[in-house]
Each structure stands twice: as structure tokens, then as C-alpha cells.
């Protein structure tokens, strides 16, 4: 799958046409190590030097290449967003697995699609770019990836239901920007907040309805 999607170029404030695709390969993972990781580390060092440790992403030394064997597993789906010849975001979802069941009382046990990994290129993140004295380049990458997860959920007959564990520093993104329902903290996953969509909420997110 390869589809055109609009994202925002912060320099102009205008919409630009990016590409979202699902044929993610190990070369894309290598690209993140070569292009993303050095910037994340540089920004993390700056934040540490300023004493802003709480702003350092917990996954700052994450390595996508270690997940190469998971590309072949059919239960997984990977999505990437490309613009200006650069990878702008990457996501891995699971369609089957221990987290692929709903926990909201009104839909408990029903199948959902789980967002296992999601990362936006560091030059698109305000916190990291501010640490480097720069401005973030492109916006709406995270929303587009969540949108892809919801659309995949519908393809899998899960009616748009998705679930994920949020890190503390991203709870606001899922609650306010994506309007997911916070269900509760999961002791099996470091007490991270579990959020999910009902089919109605998923549809509202896709259409922009409130």
C-alpha cells in the first residue's frame, strides 16, 4: 500500500503531500539509525546538560533494526511516512497478541489492533528541536499514523478499535489530540496508561466529528 496524505510544512504553514506506505523494510530501519538517532541523542544530551531530564524521551536509544525479524510476522503491520525523501514517522501494530483485546467495560474482550511502536522523526518534535535551537519541520505525522492504525483496524474487521500503552509524556497526545479513552493504568506494563477507541470514537477521529 502506498497512499498520498497531507501533512503540514511548518515553515510555510501549508499542507504538503507526503506518502504513507506499509512495505517497510530493514533499510528503513537502518535509515532511522543513521538519520534519526544521532539527532535524538544530540538533543537528549542538550536536555541533560540543561537539567531537563524529564523531557528526554525514554526511548532515546531505541533501535528499530533489532525489530527486523518482526517484519516477516503476519500478525504485525508496519507503516512509514515519507516526505522530502526522508522518513518522517514509523509505526508497528499488532493484529494478534496478548494486548489485542479491549478493556473498556462496554467492549471488553472484543478484538482490537494494538499500537506496539510509534516514532516520529526527531526534527518534527518541538521538545527536541527547541533543545537544538531549531524549529520542528513537519506536523500531523503522529495523527496520520494513528489514522493508519484505525483504518487497519477496520480492514481487520475490528471496527476501528485500537489500543495502546501511553508513556506519561504522551498521554496528552492520545487523550486530547486523538481523543482516545483512558481506561486505566496497567500494572503488567510498568503502570502505563492504557487507552483505546470504541468504534464510534474511531469514526469521530477519522472524520473530525466531536
Amino acid at each position, binding site marked *: 500500500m502506498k497512499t498520498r496524505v497531507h*501533512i*503540514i510544512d511548518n515553515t510555510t504553514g501549508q499542507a504538503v503531500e507526503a506518502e504513507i506506505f506499509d512495505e517497510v523494510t530493514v533499510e528503513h530501519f537502518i535509515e532511522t539509525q543513521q538519520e534519526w538517532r544521532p539527532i535524538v541523542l544530540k538533543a537528549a544530551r542538550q536536555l541533560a546538560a540543561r537539567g531537563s531530564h524529564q523531557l528526554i524521551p525514554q526511548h532515546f536509544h*531505541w533501535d528499530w533494526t533489532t525489530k527486523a525479524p518482526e517484519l516477516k510476522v503476519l500478525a504485525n503491520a508496519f507503516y512509514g511516512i515519507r516526505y522530502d525523501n526522508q522518513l518522517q514517522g514509523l509505526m508497528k501494530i499488532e493484529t494478534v497478541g496478548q494486548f489485542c483485546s479491549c478493556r473498556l467495560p462496554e467492549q471488553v474482550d472484543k478484538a482490537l489492533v494494538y499500537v506496539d511502536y510509534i*516514532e516520529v522523526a526527531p526534527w518534527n*518534535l518541538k521538545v527536541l528541536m527547541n533543545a537544538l535551537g531549531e524549529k520542528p519541520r513537519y506536523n500531523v505525522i503522529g*495523527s496520520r499514523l494513528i489514522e493508519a492504525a484505525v483504518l487497519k483496524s477496520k480492514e481487520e474487521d475490528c471496527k476501528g478499535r485500537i489500543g495502546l500503552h501511553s*508513556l506519561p509524556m504522551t498521554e496528552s497526545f492520545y487523550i486530547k489530540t486523538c481523543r482516545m479513552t483512558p481506561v486505566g493504568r496497567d500494572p503488567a506494563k510498568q503502570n502505563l496508561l492504557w487507552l483505546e477507541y470504541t468504534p464510534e470514537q474511531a469514526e469521530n477521529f477519522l472524520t473530525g466529528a466531536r
Partner: protein
Amino acid sequence: MKFNSDPAWLKKQASLEDNCFVSVGGLVSAVEDLEQQTQQATASRTAFVKLLNLTRREHKLTWEQFSQKLDVDLAELMEIENDESYKPTPRTVTKIAHFLHVPAEKLFILSGLARVHDRYFKEAALRFAARSQPVKELSSEEHEALKEYVKFLCER
């Protein structure tokens, strides 16, 4: 897949998202798993260095004599001994395996050149690494530990 192409939706999402940080718990768990694997790799690496050291002392060799017996570079042997982050060359590991009469692939794992998911292998490496003391002469206990560990590497 039909993505939303409404400019109003895009504008609204842009305002809400505002280039905020986006991540999920899966990344952090996986990073922690990787750290645990790295710690286990460190234990294996310690066992590898200990194996080398005890073997040299068992044969009552200096490092220089040992490197000649193994037919490997003395400088590399010293790097292995002193620098935990140093990754030996496959040739060196093969030479050591040949000298010890143990399967080379086992030493590849121990030295950090390859990864393993074998629980028994990791546990044995940890036990061996914990057992020896830094003294010049091999004690009978160290001698036994070395003999046992080499036997284990050959049998598994």
C-alpha cells in the same frame, strides 16, 4: 486505505498535535529488554575473558607465549583482557576455540560476536564468571571450574 483529505481536519489536527512528542510503551519495554540482553551479554563476555585467563594460567604461559601458541596478535589478546567493549575478530575466537578444543560457535556467543536465546548457556556462563578469583596460581577449585566449563561447552 482512505485517509482524510479535508483541509479543515488537517488544520485542526495540526493545532492539536502541535509537534508534540509521540511514543508508546512498547518502545520503552523493548529498550529495557535490550538492556537486559546487554547485561546478560556482559556476563557472557566476563566468562569469555575468565576462560581465556584461566586457560593461560593453567598452561603456565605469559600473555606473549599464549599469543604465540594461539597464533593471534598479542595486542588483540590484551584488548580482550582489558576492554569489555572490545569485540574480538572471528579469526581470534576460532583460534582460541581450536586451542581449547571447544566448538567455535559456542565461543562466538560467549565473546559477544553472536547472540543466543539459550537460557542454560547464559546461566552456565554466569556461574563460571562468578567462580574464579584473580590470583596468579590456579587454585584446585579454579582448575575444577575450568575443566567443568570446557566440558560443558563441548557437550552442549
